[in-house]
């Protein structure tokens, strides 16, 4: 709420907007009404601003209706639960791999050379897997034709 005061002959300026929006004190409202009765310029300004406000209120500035937003919101829920699912699966796989590696390292039936060879093979496979996965993810993100149906 603005407490700015205006002289009796001074144009009411921004108070016109406050008046339209119902944001003035009773004293300020009366000040605007008295001034507009005597000032054709401010009276015209008030009418024009009121017409502008009404036209904005009636305009359709967004073309997406509520059903679409409801659908999108359902998708948010689906995406969130799916994310949790993937997180659990990946967590389980990583835990299983960790246990496997640990068992492999402490296994006394295999020699150091055999462990190094097996470790290199499995390590190479893991590196290749993540390399291909990374490449695919980058392509998926940057491919501008991904939504084009042939």
């Amino acid at each position, binding site marked *: 709420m603005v407490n700015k005061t205006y002289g009796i002959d001074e144009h009411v300026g921004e108070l016109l907007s406050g008046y339209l929006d119902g944001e003035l004190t009773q004293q300020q409202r009366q000040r605007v009404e008295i001034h507009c009765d005597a000032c054709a310029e401010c009276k015209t300004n008030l009418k024009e601003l009121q017409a502008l406000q009404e036209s904005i209120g009636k305009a*359709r500035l967004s073309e997406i209706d509520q059903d679409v937003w409801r659908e*999108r919101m359902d998708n948010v829920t689906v995406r969130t639960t799916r994310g949790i699912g993937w997180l659990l699966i990946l967590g389980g796989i990583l835990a299983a791999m960790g246990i496997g590696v640990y068992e492999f390292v402490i296994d006394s039936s295999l020699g150091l050379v055999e462990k190094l060879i097996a470790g290199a093979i499995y390590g190479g496979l893991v590196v290749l897997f993540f390399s291909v996965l990374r490449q695919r993810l980058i392509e998926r993100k940057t491919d501008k034709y991904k939504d084009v149906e042939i």
Partner: protein
Amino acid sequence: MNINEMRQELVQHSGGAHALAIQILGNVDDAADAVQDALVTALTRPGAYDDKKGQLKPWFLRVVRNRCFDLLRRRRSSDMPVEELVDTAANPEQALDITQRDQALKLALASISTEQRQIIVLRDYLGLTYAEIADVLSIPQGTVMSRLHRARLALREVLKGYGE
């Protein structure tokens, strides 16, 4: 407020939030993405909204606005061609439904500053009070009236130029 009540209310506010996002981002699709991201934030962290501190509508609009500015920073440019604010998503059939008055208004909005567009949409399209506008825009409540008045005068002048 429980999550179902929140969902119902967010659906009602999403269209208005989209209108605000369009005014900031200048692009219908990016604006829809911003609102979608804000919905994800609101629904995955419903505790972030405290109904004792105010209404859901201004809170959600603030989340959408912040998301828009994140997208603008990522885009590294807030410059936008005027025509992008005017129904880029509208197909010919939709365009028939849009009145000439709406088109002129959208063009005029695109001609004033982003700050002015936001404050006009928040008040005259979304019906927020001055206190709520100050909250959404993070500005002192005492400056809302003068900023809004200047924005309205600027919009009126542009519309007069179109022969409204």
